[in-house]
């Protein structure tokens, strides 16, 4: 792994971005066995590179995520609907009722409960990309699983194949924001939404490209969601910076249905929101998140989302 590449990051990056790059040099070699070596993904990444001709053959980043469930209280302690879901809804104009990120309530032993945000696992051995008959769903070189909505034929084979139930289908014509027809559709930012095609969390490929955290991570007031670059082994939730392999290794992080061999790129650190005072016997359910229409999300003249302040705010800094 050539950590010098880390210096050639986007100039648009925020200050956090530069920190990421700097730490990368020190941390790059540190990727342990707990983290899949990014190089193992490269063959498949280059295979799909023709769909993304502007991308370099050797990707600079290999994005992964970690969700610290010790910090996830389902936004119950602040008596709000899950902010991550609302942030995602507003960012992508997610068709109402088919959230890309969901807060699942998990039944733990002893009758206790915890919350688990479910996003796309960006599996390295992704069942969905294998079964697509037209190659409409694929890995981008940096590890996100994307969907080309100009290609998708709506057979829903990928929905049958996904072992996590992540994928959503536009059964009818989904509502689009005003001016969406002028928006610049890309598989990374699939607005406008199209009838008869499959959608899902794209792990915010359009934002990570620009060195920004995914919309859910930005919106999370608890800073529970981390974005990490496996190449440099650096991760951040927007508040602290961690050496990613150590972070997941020392916190007993697990991946969903690891035994299936899908090699997800999303790790979960077990917990029940205790960092914010939620107790295991709490029976408070997560509130229903508002959809983008209720949040009043709109597009600006460049076809990019205008984020309503209520959905992007972090709580305490």
């Amino acid at each position, binding site marked *: 792994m050539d950590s010098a590449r880390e210096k050639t990051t986007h100039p648009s990056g925020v200050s956090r971005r530069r920190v990421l790059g700097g730490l990368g040099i020190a941390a790059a070699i540190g990727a342990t066995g707990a983290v899949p070596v990014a190089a193992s993904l490269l063959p498949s990444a280059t295979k799909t590179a023709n769909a993304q001709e502007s991308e370099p053959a050797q990707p600079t980043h290999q994005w992964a995520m970690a969700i610290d469930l010790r910090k996830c209280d389902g936004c119950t302690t602040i008596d709000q609907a899950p902010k991550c879901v609302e942030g995602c809804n507003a960012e992508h104009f997610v068709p109402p009722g088919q959230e890309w990120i969901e807060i699942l309530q998990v039944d733990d032993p002893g009758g206790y409960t915890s919350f688990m945000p479910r996003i796309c696992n960006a599996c390295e051995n992704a069942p969905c990309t294998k079964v697509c008959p037209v190659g409409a769903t694929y890995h981008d070189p940096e590890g996100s699983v994307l969907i080309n909505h100009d290609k998708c034929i709506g057979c829903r084979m990928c929905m049958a194949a996904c072992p996590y139930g992540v994928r*959503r289908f536009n*059964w009818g014509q989904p509502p689009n924001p005003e001016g969406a027809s002028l928006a610049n559709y890309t598989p990374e930012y699939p607005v406008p939404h199209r009838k008869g095609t499959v959608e899902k969390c794209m792990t915010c490929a359009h934002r990570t490209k620009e060195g920004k955290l995914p919309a859910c991570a930005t919106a999370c007031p608890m800073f529970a969601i981390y974005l990490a670059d496996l190449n440099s082994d650096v991760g951040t939730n927007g508040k602290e910076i961690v050496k990613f392999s150590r972070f997941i290794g020392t916190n007993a992080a697990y991946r969903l249905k690891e035994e299936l061999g899908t090699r997800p790129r999303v790790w979960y650190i077990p917990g029940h929101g205790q960092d914010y005072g939620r107790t295991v016997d709490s029976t408070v359910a997560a509130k229903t998140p508002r959809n983008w229409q209720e949040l009043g999300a709109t597009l600006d003249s460049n076809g990019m989302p205008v984020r309503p302040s209520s959905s992007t705010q972090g709580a305490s800094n």
Partner: protein
Amino acid sequence: MAPLTRTSRAWMVWMGILLILIMAGTVAYATQLKDGLAVTGLNDTVTWGVYISNFVFFSGLGMAGTFISGILRLTGAEWRRPLTRFAELSTVAALTICAIMPAIDMGRPDRVLHLIMYGRLESPLMWDIMVIPTYLTASIIYLFLFLIPDSGILRDKLGGQVSGFRRKLYTAVGMRWQALPEQRRRIERAGTIMAALIIPIGIATHSVVSWIFGMTYRSGWDSTIFAPYFAVGALYSGTAILITLMYVFRRVYRLEDFLTERHFKLLATLMVVFGVAYLYFTFAEFLTMSYKMEASDGALINQLFFGRYAAMVWLGFIGGQIVPVVLAALPWTRKIRILVFASVLVNVGMWLKRLVIVVPSMSAPLLPYEWGAYMPSGVEILITVASFAGFAFIMTVFAKFFPIISIDEMEEGWELEEARAHSVSGAHAPAALKPQVERA
């Protein structure tokens, strides 16, 4: 030959009903095209429903016809002769409907050409897209081969009595058939080659159909026996439809002399064999799942046998697997009407079984979700009814133009019998006839 040339009022009424049903399905599909699959009962949890189970069902109906005709031809079973034509026809009709179903299920039918432009061999769906047209084409060729002599006969015998279109049709399909020994030899050889080819293609077809399920991680689908399980199920359901169709044709065209009780019994024996094999697979499949009760498998088993799907599962299992097999196996119930009743039960049960394969595995939660719910909408029901009407329509139209029992096969059989009788009585069979008949 009378049904070919005379059109009764009952036939017109029957065609009228079929056309109305097909029209209703077409209108239903038009609304689906306009408003999208939102008009169905499908949702993000249960993403496949009756369209896909119809697809599996019709591919099952289609599997047996040509397959059985091929096996019986290769093994030289003489009793096949009056069955081959409508068996092969049922395959062509069922596979045509089967091929349409996934297209109806597509969210973007306007992009069907993407399958050719961007097709990926890695996708199990692409395997289906390759194998079903292959089996359909092979079945059409196989059906067509033995239409050549029959059309030649019709051309010569009906020449003056029929319309210009029919004359042209028979002349074209008859391909200058004059029953010359060389022609006969070649068509027999072609028939044997096709029969041998069709058996692996038939097996491949239903195996591949099973793999759109078997290649996933879902409980109930994630099974290594799915390919043979589906293939045996298809043979079971396909043999049953042959019995049903045989009865219909026998009644409608008064073919009691050709399609005798013996034919029903022999086909019923085949049905019992496949039925028992299918029971065996069903047992093996569910025993291994329910012995271990792996978390998600266990949840599915509970819902299937004791939960929300119990009615459908037990109805399909007892009504579609146990009862018909017993009826067709016991000597004192082996009467034509009872066997036909059993064959209808089989296909009702097998249709349910396919729905039970598709829907519960889709409803089962993959993460801590609720169980998904699915109830087919009016549009889906209309399209399903239309697909059955389409199956009947293809068969009816075909039977209007071509004999439903192969004239040539029958004649050949009679000649063969005569030849045997001669050789028994010391006379020699005509030299040209004997070897070619043996090969048949």
